[in-house]
């Protein structure tokens, strides 16, 4: 899978039930509360601070894919996302001695990711004026005939997500990937709760339209 298609193509036979249960667990399960067998994120972070590298790996494996997808879809460029991904974890590692569990680890982690992204956008605007090419988000690997209606709907959804204004995309991804509440999203993005809620509502509305109105598939595989 190349950089142009990486954030468009989903699984061909995903187990959606498992996926949803997995996300509910992520939102309210082991990351925020303690149980007898699973240490909390904060406990793992403290163990890592005290020299336990295995604790960091456990913590990392809990969050790595969601953070990666958040950055991948936010940046709309695989290489930029990979750079930022490493930068975010680098900052987490460096900040281990200053880490205080005043909020959920997920909130702290995605706040760092959001800050890295904002800094990156600012740098790129000033020095290279980087812009995403709309053609990059299309997958030339499959012909329209090979696509089922379900996979077409997913593609429409992800294409529409890439077309959203940056602020709306950010809020939607923090909601879906990081499983954060509106209050947490508002805090991370530096806006009030109503603004975050409004952005999420607009994002969902546009994505609903994209799902409901199939685009015309042309012979060159480009969806319009």
């Amino acid at each position, binding site marked *: 899978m190349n950089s142009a298609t990486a954030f468009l193509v989903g699984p061909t036979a995903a187990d959606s039930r498992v996926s949803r249960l997995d996300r509910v667990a992520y939102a309210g399960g082991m990351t925020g509360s303690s149980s007898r067998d699973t240490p909390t994120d904060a406990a793992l972070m403290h163990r890592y601070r005290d020299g336990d*590298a295995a604790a960091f790996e456990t913590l990392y494996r809990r969050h790595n894919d969601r953070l*990666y997808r958040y950055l991948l879809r936010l940046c709309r460029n695989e290489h930029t996302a990979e750079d930022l991904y*490493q930068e975010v974890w*680098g900052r987490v590692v460096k900040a281990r001695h200053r880490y205080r569990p005043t909020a959920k680890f997920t909130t702290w982690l995605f706040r760092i990711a959001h800050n890295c992204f904002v800094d990156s956008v600012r740098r790129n605007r000033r020095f290279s004026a980087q812009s995403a090419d709309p053609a990059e988000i299309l997958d030339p690997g499959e012909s329209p005939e090979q696509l089922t209606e379900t996979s077409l709907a997913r593609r429409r959804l992800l294409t529409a997500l890439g077309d959203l204004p940056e602020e709306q995309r950010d809020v939607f991804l923090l909601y879906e990937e990081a499983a*954060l509440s509106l209050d947490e999203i508002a805090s991370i993005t530096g806006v009030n709760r109503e603004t975050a809620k409004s952005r999420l509502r607009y994002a969902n509305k546009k994505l609903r339209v994209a799902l409901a109105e199939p685009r015309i598939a042309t012979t060159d595989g480009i969806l319009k």
Partner: protein
Amino acid sequence: MNERITDPDDRSQGDDVVSSHYQDASRESVPNHLDDAVLERAAAEVARDRWQFRFHPWLRPLAVAATVTLSLAVLLEVMSSAPDDDQIIEDFSSAATDASERMRALGETTAASRPPGNPTAASGPGAIDALSAQRYCSDSAIADAERWWTCILALREEGRLEEADAELQRMRTDFPDFSPRP
């Protein structure tokens, strides 16, 4: 269950359909090389911590003892081989003349090689690297994330964008999770 899902005011009908489709579509995993890079770095940092902890108890007294010993040795050497006053004045005078001539020559060379326009201004991404060693916010400002951010905003308002970026990079290291209040 996450409270965000059960708040009916925050969700419209159909949002769950979007969410469901998105969750089905969004299943990418982190490439292995990224996993390896992050975990290796995390392990290396822990190893560095261990090394510092192991040597820390006796490293400082050793450094103090070495400094005192060297200082005494230099002092004794100076006292035992002190030249007379006339020699000192002569050496000083000669050194001052040499330095003066070198400064004059350096000034002429710099003036000759300076391009027209604004010769001292730096710009572009490289400028941040050059600026990164300098500080633009006071020690009291950088002790607190809010005050540091205020200093960065002030730099931006003054049009000193590269200086502001240099300070922002530093602030992100010390306060990676800081977000300005809305």
